[in-house]
């Protein structure tokens, strides 16, 4: 049985017996948001917005609070997620190249397996590039995902130059007429300059084969990560112009509230969410549903 203590139940508790939104309610609201990893500054921003609305609308009953709150949070996400994604699509390029980046252990390789499955199911010819040549058995892991999904994996021996693997994969995709290329990369912490430069290099090398590749640079974030995710987003964006986010492990008790702050601060949409380890456990991000799930 899930023991998820959703925002809604906590909030309901917070406002029971109160007819207007007073400081105590706002304090409770602060607790709810902060404990969902929304972060202090974003929480204060949300609370400020609510206070403004309360002041503007004069008498404000607590029954409206839930809707108001959902509305405000959705707006923070909406400003940057104007284009909610409706299917596993890949734009007008062939091959469409996706490069997947992120810190260690967030779920990059698994997300690639799941995404390949979705893209294949919607009729695309997909190839994977095993450019994590560093972590023990990383290539084997991706190859197993390739087998599971039934897509090709381009690989070189462990320790090879990741940029060279990416280059090979793109060449092979062009020759083979593939629709989508997904490049796995080794997990790296964003404060390691040499490793971040390596990512920039991988990206540059790919452009020798497909001029505007990679079309999508997907930063994978772990929903259980706290405020450090903001710094991750900042540094990976600086190194590689991240233009899409995936939020993994949302099947756990972590809320992933940090993406609200990230969405507000960077203009990068959350595109996918991971909800398990299985092949079907990838979904398109739906901001309404995401905010609703915070209130469940």
């Amino acid at each position: 049985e899930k023991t998820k203590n959703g925002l809604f139940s906590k909030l309901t508790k917070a406002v029971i017996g109160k007819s207007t939104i007073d400081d105590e309610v706002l304090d409770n609201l602060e607790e709810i948001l902060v404990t969902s990893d929304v972060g202090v500054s974003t929480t204060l921003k949300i609370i400020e917005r609510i206070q403004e609305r309360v002041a503007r609308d004069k008498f404000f009953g607590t029954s409206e609070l839930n809707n108001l709150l959902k509305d405000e949070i959705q707006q923070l996400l909406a400003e940057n997620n104007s284009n909610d994604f409706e299917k596993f699509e890949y734009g007008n390029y062939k091959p469409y190249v996706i490069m997947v980046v992120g810190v260690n252990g967030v779920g990059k390789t698994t997300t690639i397996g799941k995404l390949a499955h979705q893209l294949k199911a919607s009729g695309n010819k997909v190839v994977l590039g095993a450019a994590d040549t560093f972590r023990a058995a990383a290539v084997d892991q991706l190859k197993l995902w390739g087998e599971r999904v039934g897509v090709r994996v381009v690989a070189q021996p462990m320790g090879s130059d990741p940029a060279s693997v990416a280059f090979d994969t793109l060449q092979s995709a062009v020759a083979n007429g593939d629709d989508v290329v997904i490049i796995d990369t080794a997990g790296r912490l964003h404060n390691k300059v040499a490793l971040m430069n390596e990512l920039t290099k991988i990206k540059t090398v790919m452009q020798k084969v497909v001029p505007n590749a990679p079309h999508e640079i997907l930063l994978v974030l772990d929903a259980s990560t706290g405020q450090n995710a903001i710094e991750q987003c900042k540094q990976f964006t600086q190194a590689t112009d991240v233009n899409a986010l995936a939020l993994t492990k949302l099947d756990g008790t972590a809320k992933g509230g940090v993406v609200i702050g990230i969405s507000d601060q960077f203009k990068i949409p959350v595109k996918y969410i991971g909800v398990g380890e299985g092949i079907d456990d990838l979904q398109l991000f739906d901001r309404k549903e995401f905010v609703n799930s915070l209130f469940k």
Partner: protein
Amino acid sequence: MFENLQDKLDRAFKVLKGQGSITEINVAETMKEIRKALLDADVNYKTAKTFTDDVKVKALGQNVLTAVSPGQLLTKIMNDELAGLMGGTAIELNLTANPTIILIAGLNGAGKTTFSGKLANYLKTQKGKKPLLVAGDVYRPAAITQLQVLGEQIGIPVYANLESKDPVAIALEGIAEAKRNGNTVVILDTAGRLAIDEAMMNEIAAVKSSTKPHEILFVVDAMTGQDAVNTAKAFNDRLDFTGVVLTKLDGDTRGGAALSIKSVVNKPIKFIGTGEKMEALDVFYPERMASRILGMGDVVSLVERA
């Protein structure tokens, strides 16, 4: 974020400057900023509140001598309190049994397999032990190969059974193998699992009850946010673990989860992971962690300037 915190504390400590005693008024603003700093460091909401409340009470109870400023006194109280919470001294593994059985547990991707390798390497090179690694993750693609590759890197045998899907049986087989081969430590790597996954939690509880480990180490990512308390509590409820391992501290996270976990389960943090390489393992120093979480270096220098 750093400058931001400095600015805020600078302002907060200005309130204290030149005051002869710590009063409700001059401490309140400071505590607010400290609490924000803790939350930004991912310390759990309740833990942060309790911590600042305790510090406040202790501060209010004291008169300031002319020799120290309120700020200095407050810093000392805070330091003591945090270091106390983190646990005074480093606590070592209990390695007396032969073979010593060590069970590794934690969420997906926390760093269990990497830590298993590091620990084996540490026990071999620093403690003169003869470890055996046991590959108990039957789910993640290539999890067994990963452990085997690490074992090869550090020259430590790995017991695996590619035919079996039963972690309990594999663990028992591994222990029997260790006894046959004269291994003095058995390290049981396990699959990552969510605390709310009943079947998976039952499975690891079964591994525990059938292998009777001498140490159970809960491996947790130092970047974990507010959820750290839920997870640590749930794993502890099921496994009553003997210690915590904090991984990925080579990043720039403040690591507030360490404080939250410590305060919710009160188990010692025994190791920290500081990189992907097999040597990147350190014993845990509570004081260093305390100052990392609070950015205490900054606080101290601020107080000195005040």
